[in-house]
């Protein structure tokens, strides 16, 4: 590390070469007021609050953009500077509506804090009575241009970190304002992905989240570090809680990686979308589900499970878990099935996807498992990206942002291979659009084309020409797969010459349940430029928040698993751990029909709980302490954020309650 020494306010301070003066001040605890600066974003020097005096500079300069050098002599707080800062604030208060008493951000506003600090109680210029529109067209985000200070933080976060560049400055001078797409209301701006990053980045009350409005200021809330468990990206979050309710969810490091969040993680979790279950339910003689005590419910489950095992043997109970549950719940569930019931008739709801991935990976290279996959951060380093059969903006939005970022900053060529959608618009250099059902052929044709573009001396090429792809006629294959030859050749050229390609696939590919597709994708990736042929950079976007966790724990069955098949072949009872997943999959509901006795442990009422004999309550993500594993294998934990109603017990405790009530002696029959 290259150290430099500066003199700031008469004191010698050390810093890293390559930092700005502001960064060195911050690292040394020297306070310099800022407004347009936000750590992680490019600094633009727009607001002029951070002006400092530097020896030999004729005029004050913005600390946020001034590169620090060895030997600089800096003053951060002279009379001249303070007068200047006061003027900047006065102008801001003159220009737009900063009448705090009527502002949602009051108490949580960087401008207000500076206003107090500089004791702005009047301003020398006439007030401008701004009358900009209020844009409340978006589902989640509200923009009040009258409170905007044009710092551009929203513009920069939207383009630099979210990657979609919905926002920019429109007009000029007094009319200058933030504008979305073609100056459309935000709700109609087609490029906006509703992530809310602009809201968190805004220092004032100009951008607001409807879900948090009027529900409590941050300083009235308890702030807890947690992890979003919705989709497997595993974004780290700060949750603000007041009166046992989630008020607001922020990203912990706004401009850091995995730091922008998505509308689901940031907003949707603040609303209860399904009817909660806060008491155990037991089906009575008339066939209706009735509330009962937890003791009664556990007695019933223990007795029935015990009887069924005694009568039909240990292979008469099957267990299915949702990979939305925490690692702790899943561990307890698995232990219950293997140790107490004594069988391996367990699976996760997304077990098919697991088997598809694993079988595909094994065929690519024997012994390969989930570990063959790479991490999401690799996307940001990529120079060529291939996205196959998935819309990450729907399934794992922050992963989608990574792709946008890599592609829009001109670092990566983006290729989309998808039957019917291109979520990345013009950011995609090429959209290969195979006919439905011909994806495998298209991928193989692309692989062959890539091999053809690699240098002839390449050993890979020689080897591959002897395998199944060797005989393929690309033109013919393309015709069959419905792909434009020119597009395919372009894509192949990009992949062949890339030095760091990453392939991302997901939902639509996994739904096909065809391991050959996975093998084809891995093989394609391994042939692209500069890949480790044994461990190509590939990521699968998995179906649920904790899929990787559940699969790592061995919850998903290695063998084919069909609920209806099992109930036909002697399984009498099914135990479903749904936790806070909401399931209305008819395949599961139909599969349950063959069982005599169904126990569902869930946080929300669903068609599945409606078909149960006993419903056991389960705390939601917010109501329990637990850990979750991201789709690329990083485990993070969350504390209990809110108190569950009726003091619902943790899944582990309920499972232990059942275990205790099952007569062990019956078990070994």
């Amino acid at each position: 590390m290259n150290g430099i020494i500066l003199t700031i306010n008469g004191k010698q301070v050390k810093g890293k070469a390559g930092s700005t003066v502001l960064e060195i001040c911050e690292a040394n605890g020297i306070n310099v007021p800022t407004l347009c600066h936000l750590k992680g974003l490019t600094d633009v020097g727009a607001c002029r609050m951070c002006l400092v005096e530097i020896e030999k500079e004729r005029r004050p300069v913005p600390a946020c953009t001034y590169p620090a050098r060895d030997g600089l002599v800096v003053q951060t707080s002279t009379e001249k500077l303070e007068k200047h800062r006061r003027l900047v604030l006065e102008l801001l208060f003159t220009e737009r509506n900063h009448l705090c008493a009527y502002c949602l951000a009051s108490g949580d506003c960087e401008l207000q804090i500076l206003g107090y600090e500089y004791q702005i109680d009047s301003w020398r210029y006439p007030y401008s009575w701004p009358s900009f529109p209020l844009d409340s067209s978006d589902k989640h985000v509200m923009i009040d241009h009258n409170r905007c200070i044009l710092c551009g933080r929203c513009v920069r976060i939207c383009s630099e970190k979210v990657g979609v560049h919905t926002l920019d400055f429109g007009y000029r001078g007094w009319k200058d304002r933030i504008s979305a797409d073609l100056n459309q209301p935000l709700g109609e701006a087609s490029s906006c992905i509703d992530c809310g990053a602009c809201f968190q980045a805004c220092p004032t009350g100009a951008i607001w989240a409807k879900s948090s409005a009027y529900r409590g200021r941050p300083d009235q809330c308890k702030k807890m570090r947690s992890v979003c468990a919705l989709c497997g990206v595993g974004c780290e979050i700060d949750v603000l809680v007041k009166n046992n309710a989630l008020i607001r969810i922020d990203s912990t490091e706004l401009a850091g990686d995995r730091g922008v969040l998505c509308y689901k993680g940031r907003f949707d979790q603040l609303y209860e979308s399904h009817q909660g279950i806060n008491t155990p339910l037991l089906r009575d003689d008339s066939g209706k589900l009735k509330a009962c005590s937890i003791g009664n419910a556990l007695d019933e489950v223990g007795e029935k499970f015990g009887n069924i095992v005694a009568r039909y043997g240990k292979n008469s109970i099957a267990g299915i878990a949702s990979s939305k549950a925490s690692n702790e719940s899943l561990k307890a569930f698995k232990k219950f099935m293997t140790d107490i019931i004594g069988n391996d008739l367990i699976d996760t709801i997304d077990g098919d996807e697991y088997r598809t991935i694993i079988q595909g990976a094994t065929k690519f290279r024997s012994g390969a498992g989930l570990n063959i996959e790479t991490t999401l951060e690799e996307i940001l380093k990529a120079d060529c990206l291939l996205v196959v059969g998935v819309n990450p903006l729907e399934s794992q939005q922050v992963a989608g942002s990574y792709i946008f970022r890599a592609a829009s900053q001109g670092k990566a060529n983006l290729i989309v291979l998808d039957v019917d959608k291109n979520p990345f618009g013009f950011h995609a250099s090429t959209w290969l659009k195979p006919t439905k059902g011909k994806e495998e052929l298209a991928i193989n044709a692309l692989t062959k084309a890539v091999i053809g573009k690699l240098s002839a001396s390449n050993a890979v090429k020689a080897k591959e020409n002897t395998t199944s792809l060797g005989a393929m006629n690309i033109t013919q294959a393309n015709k069959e797969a419905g792909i434009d030859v020119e597009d395919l050749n372009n894509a192949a050229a990009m992949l062949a010459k890339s030095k760091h390609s990453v392939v991302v696939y997901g939902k639509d590919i996994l739904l096909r349940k065809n391991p050959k597709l996975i093998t084809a994708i891995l093989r394609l990736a391994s042939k692209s430029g500069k890949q480790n042929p044994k461990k190509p950079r590939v990521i699968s976007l998995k179906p649920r928040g904790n899929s990787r966790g559940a699969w790592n724990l061995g919850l998903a069955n290695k063998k084919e698993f069909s609920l209806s098949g099992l109930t036909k072949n002697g399984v009498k009872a099914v135990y479903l751990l749904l936790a806070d997943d909401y399931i209305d999959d008819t395949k599961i509901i139909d599969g349950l029909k063959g069982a005599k006795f169904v126990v569902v442990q869930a946080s929300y009422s669903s068609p599945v709980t409606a078909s149960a004999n006993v419903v056991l309550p389960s705390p939601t993500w917010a109501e329990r302490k637990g850990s979750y594993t991201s789709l690329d294998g990083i485990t993070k934990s969350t504390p209990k954020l809110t108190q569950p109603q009726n003091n619902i017990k943790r899944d582990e405790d309920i499972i232990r309650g059942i275990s205790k009530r099952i007569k062990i002696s019956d078990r070994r029959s």
Partner: protein
Amino acid sequence: MAKVATETKKSAANSVTSSKTFEKIQAIIDRTSNKAGASIRVLQQAQGLVGYLPPGVLKAISRDMKIPLSELYGIVSFYSFFSLVPKGKYVLQVCMGTSCYVKGGEKILDTLRKDYNLVPGGITSDGRFSLEMVRCLGCCGLSPVIAIGKDVHRKVKPSHLKDILSSYR
């Protein structure tokens, strides 16, 4: 909210502007896009071609030059040279300077809105007139004043509008 593209570039059609125009815009982009300040040059030429910059044209430029819509809008709204609305065959300016305002400029605007469905920034349905408000045309003694193209009409009463406008074909 984000909309997902379901059509390729080749199949994208637009109702306002013909596909011939888009081909021409594509050609403009092809010969301009690697020059400095390409976006402004392309916008200028596209406006020259179409007369103004409708959303469809901006979207095509955004897509083909890979420039976010918001960035293009920023440019277009910054320079007064660019127009997002079509201009009529004749530009009708109504003076709203102090004198004209006091003498009934507003009534002229009212009449244009009621009888011709013409509002400031708008255009008549036959495309003959587009309307702008201006501040003082420098003949306050003869207010209220309107200008059509290079002609200035003085002491205009709402009832004169019919005759005045029908003299422009």
